[in-house]
């Protein structure tokens, strides 16, 4: 039997778990200001997570999906993208969204069960959170198709969890992007778990990165807790896409240090030692260690940063708590640009029966 095709999956890590460079770092990492901004965003996410969980526990927020542990992936991706690119998130990639201009208040508003949270004032073309797992991937391929048709040097970036890669929609989107060489980057966030199902039960594939091969799309892994590595591979993938060389699948290896959502209890299914081991590889200390080793960070700055983040979060929570509540009519207002007449009657009826205040 002769061999007609061969494929390899690479793995990238630029900062190891101790914060030591594994080799020469890319240009952006020479810029202390840039690295500090990235670190700041990771800390903001971590602290925001704690706050949001607390709001949920105290009845001030609905179910919330935390991002703790995944900040490096999220921030690395966000920092690599250009403003004119378009993001197709799942539901916990706040680091990317915040980097792109979504606000903490918008995030809270969304999780409070209010659609206005998705009407981002910042990145107007970014897609909102996508609950049906995997279904955002074709949207990204479609946006990339629009860029391609118009000849715009823009990219669509689609997130998907490693669990989400089991959905046919993901594969269909990758296949389209590969077939038409669309400027798309599919970022598979392999955080080890899809609610209670471990990554190992999701597929027989040795890596999630190789899922791209089915669509003729190159795939690679990156240490998803290494923000410098993530940003570097992401920049390369975006550059390829912009140059018309087609899509890339990137598997970011990270870990969901929290429960799946506040409605979940991971201790039911997740081995404690696995969690403990994952905390040893988590992204924040490693970037901090690197910055400190370079003389760009110390405890004072850390305290200042944390105080600043806390203030930012507090202000956002205040904004969230004092936001206008949606009127009953809101559920009729945005269905159509030209609503059918019958809807007005129903709206009138709904207004006559306001829900019990809560």
């Amino acid at each position: 039997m002769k061999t007609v095709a061969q494929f390899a999956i690479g793995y990238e890590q630029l900062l190891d778990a101790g914060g030591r460079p594994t080799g020469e770092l890319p240009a952006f990492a020479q810029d202390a200001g840039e690295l500090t901004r990235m670190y700041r965003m990771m800390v903001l996410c971590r602290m925001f997570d704690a706050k949001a969980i607390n709001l949920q526990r105290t009845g001030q927020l609905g179910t919330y999906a935390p991002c703790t542990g995944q900040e490096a992936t999220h921030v690395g991706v966000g920092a690599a993208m250009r403003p004119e690119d378009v993001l197709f998130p799942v539901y916990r990639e706040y680091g990317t969204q915040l980097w792109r201009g979504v606000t903490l208040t918008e995030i809270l508003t969304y999780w409070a069960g209010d659609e206005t949270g998705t009407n981002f004032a910042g990145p107007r073309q970014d897609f909102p959170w996508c609950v049906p797992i995997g279904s955002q991937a074709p949207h990204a391929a479609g946006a990339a198709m629009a860029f391609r048709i118009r000849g715009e040097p823009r990219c669509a970036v689609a997130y998907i969890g490693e669990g989400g890669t089991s959905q046919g929609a993901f594969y269909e989107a990758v296949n389209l992007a590969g077939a038409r060489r669309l400027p798309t980057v599919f970022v598979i966030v392999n955080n080890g778990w899809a609610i209670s199902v471990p990554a190992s039960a999701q597929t027989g594939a040795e890596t999630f990165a190789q899922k791209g091969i089915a669509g003729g799309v190159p795939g690679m892994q990156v240490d998803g807790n290494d923000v410098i590595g993530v940003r570097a591979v992401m920049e390369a993938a975006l550059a390829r896409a912009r140059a018309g060389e087609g899509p890339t699948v990137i598997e970011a290896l990270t870990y969901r240090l929290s429960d799946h959502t506040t409605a979940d209890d991971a201790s039911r299914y997740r081995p404690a030692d696995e969690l403990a081991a994952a905390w040893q590889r988590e992204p924040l200390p490693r970037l901090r260690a690197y910055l400190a080793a370079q003389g760009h960070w110390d405890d004072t700055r850390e305290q200042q940063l944390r105080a600043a983040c806390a203030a930012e979060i507090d202000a956002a929570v205040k904004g969230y708590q004092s936001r206008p509540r949606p009127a009953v009519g809101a559920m009729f207002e945005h269905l159509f640009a030209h609503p059918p007449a019958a809807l007005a009657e129903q709206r009138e009826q709904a207004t006559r029966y306001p829900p019990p205040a809560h």
Partner: protein
Amino acid sequence: MARVTLVESINLALNRALADDPDVVLIGEDIGVNGGVFRATQGLQQRYGEWRVQDTPLAEGLIAGMSIGMAAQGLRVVAEIQFMGFMYPALDQIANHMARLRNRTRGRLTCPVVIRMPHGGGIHAPEHHSESLEVLFCHHAGLRVVCPSTPAAAYGLLLAAIRDPDPVIFLEPTRLYRMARQEVLDNGNALPLDRAQILREGDDVTLVTWGAMTHESLQAAQQLAQRKISCEVIDLTSLSPIDHDCILDSVAHTGRLVIVHEAARNAGLGAEIAATVAERALYDLLAPVERVTGYDTVMPYFGLEKAYIPGVDRIVDAVLRTLET
């Protein structure tokens, strides 16, 4: 006899089915170690092993599709779809194959599959977790659609559904999962499919409803009783086929019909009930039919879900309108 919640009664029935019949297999997302996000399958994988109570990869189309292959091989598959809003990718397999395989092969291959899924909103969940899409199944021949509203009905009907040789869509009212307890005898007795149930007898108006809306409908009936208006409350229970005789008998007696459902009004299942009455009992009607339903919007995020789900007031007012004439 234990007093159990609706979700516990589901668990009892699943346990009973697994114990009684080695061909029964459960599949779904997070139904194994985690016992399902609502705990309907709690403890079952531990008891029956990883092959008989199986977590699938995250793909609802696959869940429905693999069920067909398993069922045609003689297994009795009970598949869980985690939330009703996620059933769409499964609909192709359900409508194009599951509902048709017996007919297509003239009885050679069959699909004894039960697809369980939560139904309806009111639990403060994110988007797509609160849908009421029963009518999409009801329109398809070859499927039965069942929606129990009490723990005892859930137990007996789930066993009936699992034992039935054809596919059954089994809708579980999310809001009722833990709302109330009822004595349920875990005796393995199935209840008959295809039947509506009269929850409350009455003379003035017939209320037809199902799932979690039985709750608001009974409350409305109670309020109206205080005003000396007597409502007969029918829990449709079998959404396909519809037990039209039960409804027609009641309307023959009361002359008035109010249909209550959480799903959107336009082309909702209430329309089929109203249409059948307009065809077969027109002369029994003393007043126009009323439908009290979800609005023709998408189910809003939970901040407004209580404005969407029909409340007791809306039902009471609809009943009163039928009495104005």
